[in-house]
């Protein structure tokens, strides 16, 4: 993908993606739009995310798609950076929208949880890791608990046609309506 535009064509939309506490399924689903990628690709410039090689979240991003819940201190920082540097922030998939599977731990205090897994649950080690891993938040929460989210795309993962419908709408400069008869049967909440 190159960032150059030929004169006369509209500037490419600067798109970033971000992977927080999720399984990467939403990114997979994004790639699952298959040949439609070819049609979408010339209209976007991928500036950040697991699919490209950028080290730092750039400034002036038009749209950022975020997969995953906010579960630890790193997630917190990342989602705040994304908010500050993006025009439009999209919660992509149920973990980002509802905190989904990551939230299943929310019913137990973090301390009990870690000890159950790393101390009681193993014969080796018997130590809760603290180095090189960001501390967990008390609860795993949806993105909109932390920053303002402009659009929620539910689904675990959102079906490829739903992602395509979303991208096309955003590239055409409007918000998608998921009750639209052409996608409603493919949208799933929760």
């Amino acid at each position, binding site marked *: 993908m190159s960032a150059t535009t030929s004169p006369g064509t509209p500037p490419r939309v600067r798109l970033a993606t971000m992977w927080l506490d999720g399984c990467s399924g939403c990114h997979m689903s994004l790639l699952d739009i298959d040949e439609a990628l070819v049609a979408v690709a010339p209209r976007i410039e991928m500036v950040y995310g697991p699919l490209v090689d950028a080290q730092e979240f750039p400034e002036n991003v038009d749209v950022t798609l975020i997969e995953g819940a906010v579960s630890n201190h790193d997630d917190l920082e990342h989602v705040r950076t994304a908010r500050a540097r993006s025009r439009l922030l999209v919660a992509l998939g149920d973990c980002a929208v509802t905190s989904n599977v990551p939230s299943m731990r929310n019913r137990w205090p973090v301390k009990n949880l870690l000890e159950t897994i790393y101390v009681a649950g193993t014969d080796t080690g018997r130590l809760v890791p603290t180095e090189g891993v960001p501390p967990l938040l008390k609860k795993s929460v949806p993105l909109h608990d932390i920053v303002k989210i402009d659009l929620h795309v539910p689904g675990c993962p959102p079906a490829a046609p739903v992602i395509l419908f979303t991208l096309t709408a955003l590239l055409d400069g409007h918000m998608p309506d998921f009750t639209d008869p052409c996608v409603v049967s493919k949208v799933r*909440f929760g």
Partner: protein
Amino acid sequence: MSQKISVRIDGQLCTAEAGQTIYQVAQAAGRHIPALCHMEGLSSAGSCRLCLVQVEGLGRLLPACTTPARDGMAVTTQSETLAHNRRMALELLFSERNHICAVCVSNGHCELQALACELGVTSVRFPYNYPRLPVDASHPRFVLDHNRCVLCTRCVRVCDEIEGAHVWDIAGRGIASMLVCELDRPWGEAESCTGCGKCVQVCPTGALVEKGRAVEEMTKRRGPVLHLAERKEARP
């Protein structure tokens, strides 16, 4: 012969029988009103508030499934206000317990989920409650997962009204309300349960399910219950 009344549903003049609910009249007129706790063939509970409608001249919204239609009533079933309130009711249901659809046996066949899509709910604005709730797997064939129960009382009603066993009821009140089996007994020890499975088939969510189903595998059969309800109705 029961008395005839006329009701206006979204501007359309309908003839109905006295005693019919707004929901029934609207349905006969081909107007769709979202509903969750209501189920054909069972009495109405009015617990979910999804079927709210506007009645001309009344300041507050009324549940269509429990409000009797009256002669000369003018009812609106679709509007921005209604959509707003229905969405809010749904979001509150989602936030109250732990609906992790991705790992639910009823994923894709759940009425709560379907309503969210129908009404365009794409996120829940209220903080999730994350309660710690039990799962009762003591019955040899069925499971009750309180995490997914929306307290619609369909199971209570079908077991009482169609099966005649009245195994279930709601204990406690407010946010602490819980579905209970007899005197808060494990289902597997219930003396009054016949094991007919009607409660499982009418439960709109993955709260009452058959054992041995994997994620997305639990589809429910409403047909037999509807059929029994019809026959009961037809009896003199």
